[in-house]
């Protein structure tokens, strides 16, 4: 247990470095979660894109009817009629669609020579298309009802149109479980968790091995009356404890911060996500064991931990969904463990029924993660064997008796 205790002591002295990562990660997630507002439901609920209406005409029953109709189907983002405000909101997606009603629109519509409304959205964007189709549907109905009976007043037309447009087709959500689906917030957290698991595990493990691999310490330890088995057992226990602590703390953080959005979600899906991150911790531990043979200074330690974690996370779809990557990159990413981790997260969150067939892709991803962990661990053992035999592993310290 000497090695185990010494490892814990080294970690304690370097705890600040690890805590910086954990605290920053926690702070970022808490901030993001505070902006999260989506309501998850088992029944069909339409997406409500943000829209803005700038009315440069007077308020009339027709324009008020349009506002009311859009408010029922979208989320209104009220903005002042200022160029800069509108530009910023459109750029940062605070609003997906800005509809500008020009001065004199109501009169022109009523007289049969309607002015065009101006619409600002990202060209070809789906959300803009959706709100635009709603606005067009409302205006088409107003025009049709007015032309069908020109004697009707504006109030009457607006009322009739809103009544006609309140009719909805029936929709059902085909889910074979009665529980709510996993929220986007928790799903995203699980994807990004792979980054923090990898970086913190790498730092914790390499901090110890970096110290133990110091040539002078290594030579001393080789002379110590402790068997190699005992030393390895101590290191193994340390890795297991660190892995377990990092996995448990990051998993519980995600769960408790996302808890309001997980109300009613199937606990078995959450358990599967926990199992998935545990398997990925094994992969991270195996990678850390392999890389510790190449880490000798704090500079390379931080660089390797960050470069590798970021590269793997981007490539494996932890930060950006895989479908946004190019075909070539997607093919390449299949050879990384993060790909299978992200795939398992998607498969678990998409589960609507828990049976042998639907769980098969999840088990396959789990098996791939275990396979990666085992393969990398074998490689680490082989590299370790070769490095330990090499004379250069003792650095510049000369062990021969100088004559």
């Amino acid at each position, binding site marked *: 247990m000497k090695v185990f205790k010494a490892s814990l002591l080294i970690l304690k002295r370097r705890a600040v470095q690890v805590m910086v990562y954990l605290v920053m990660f926690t702070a970022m997630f808490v901030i993001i979660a505070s902006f999260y507002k989506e309501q998850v439901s088992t029944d069909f609920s339409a997406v409500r894109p943000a829209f803005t209406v700038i009315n440069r005409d007077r308020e009339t029953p027709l324009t008020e009817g349009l506002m009311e109709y859009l408010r029922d189907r979208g989320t209104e983002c009220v903005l002042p009629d200022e160029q800069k405000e509108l530009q910023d909101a459109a750029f*940062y997606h605070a609003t997906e669609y800005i509809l500008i009603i020009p001065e004199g629109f109501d009169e022109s519509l009523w007289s049969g020579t309607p002015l065009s409304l101006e619409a*600002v959205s990202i060209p070809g964007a789906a959300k803009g298309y959706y709100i635009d189709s709603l606005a067009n549907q409302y205006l*088409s109905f107003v025009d049709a009802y007015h032309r069908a009976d020109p004697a009707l007043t504006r109030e009457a037309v607006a009322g009739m149109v809103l009544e006609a447009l309140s009719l909805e087709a029936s929709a059902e959500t085909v889910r074979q479980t009665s529980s709510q689906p996993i929220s986007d917030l928790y799903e995203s957290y699980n994807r990004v968790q792979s980054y923090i698991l990898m970086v913190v595990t790498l730092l914790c493990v390499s901090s110890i091995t970096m110290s133990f691999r110091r040539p002078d310490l290594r030579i001393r330890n080789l002379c110590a009356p402790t068997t190699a088995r005992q030393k390895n057992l101590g290191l193994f226990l340390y890795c297991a404890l660190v892995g377990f602590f990092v996995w448990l703390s990051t998993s519980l953080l995600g769960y408790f911060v996302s808890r309001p959005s997980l109300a009613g979600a199937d606990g078995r899906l959450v358990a599967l996500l926990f199992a998935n991150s545990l398997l990925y911790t094994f992969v991270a531990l195996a990678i850390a064991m392999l890389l510790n043979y190449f880490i000798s200074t704090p500079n390379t330690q931080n660089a390797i931990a960050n470069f590798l974690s970021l590269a793997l996370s*981007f490539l494996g779809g932890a930060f950006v969904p895989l479908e946004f990557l190019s075909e070539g990159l997607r093919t390449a990413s299949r050879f990384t463990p993060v790909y299978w981790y992200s795939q398992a997260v998607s498969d678990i969150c998409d589960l609507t029924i828990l049976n042998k067939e639907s769980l098969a892709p999840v088990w396959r991803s789990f098996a791939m993660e275990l396979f990666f962990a085992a393969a990398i661990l074998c490689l680490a053992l082989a590299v370790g064997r070769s490095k330990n035999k090499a004379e250069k592993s003792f650095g510049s310290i000369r062990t021969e008796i100088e004559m």
Partner: protein
Amino acid sequence: MFGNIYCKRILVSVRNKGTLIWTWIFPLMMATLFYFAFSGLQDAELLKTIPAGIVVSEEYESDTALRTTLQAVSDPEEGFLELHTYETREAAAEALTSGEIDGFFSLENGSPKLSVSKNDLNQTILKSFLDQYVQTRHAVISLLEKGDTDVSQILDLFQTETWTEELSLSKNVPSETVNYFFALLAMVCMYGGFQGLDSVSYLQANLSPLGARRTLSPAKRFPMVFFDLLAALTVHMACMLFLLAYLVLILRVDFGTGLVPVIVTCLFGSFLGMSFGSFVTAISRAKEGVKVAVIISVSLACSFGAGMMVSGINYKIAKTLPVLAWLNPAARISDALYCLYYYDGYGQYFLNLGILAAMTLAFSIVTAFFLRRQRYESI
């Protein structure tokens, strides 16, 4: 003296592996990852053909209106649906579960119904399409029942018409991707703090042996500090220009304007980063590792606030906590680049540069206060 201090300081900076990794190699890697990861982000927002199904029952075969409408919207040239037909509801449900289609339509007692497995935008568009079909059919029938107008007239009334025309608010199209690169440049500007840290460490007798030796040298203090900082700025600006060249020439990132104002922004940002690093180093005698940790943590936190990890978070912070947004140097650098890309005028761009200059001045004054007329009883 100038040549001696300037050249040696540059040599020291280039040989510093830590600075080399974090200010030269790390940003290049991040830029490359951003490029590959976010290049498809813009396309993801676009409306693509939605795969949908229809259960072909006897009811459906006899409903000419629905069949014609579905045929029209699944036209390969102009439609937005990719329509798959299924003999039974079970087969359609299986295709839905496997992800082959986003939803399927069926007829139940003459009424069309939509079945989906998720509540995403594609499903919302399918539902909206079906709602509009139901609403139009109901309106046509109710007008026919009134008997004032004939069928052809009524159908003419509901001809699809576009009432809106697209308007662009800016010279450049909004892009979610470009903001990540702005925030990345802001982060590298903040990493100028490493140069500030080195400069102050090499000048202060209580922070490094070199500082102790330089304090004893007969050279005047001000030229020594000035030449040192000038060399540090040269190295950091070389790093910024290297990154900028990589972004513009290799990754083809569009900054929406000429490169001169972008370089000026980087220069102001570098001044700020260096003065921040000098400030952190001068005010405390903590270990170098702690100061490096402070510079990295503050830079990353500021870059997060500028939108490097989550696009649009800078806008949300600016709307909810405007003071925090104005005091975040990385957000100001990123916003200055955003102004160049998106706005037609330069008003806010110069305001951002002014704030950066004011912050630099504030950090420099405090640093100078700590550096001037130091006497050491013991180091």
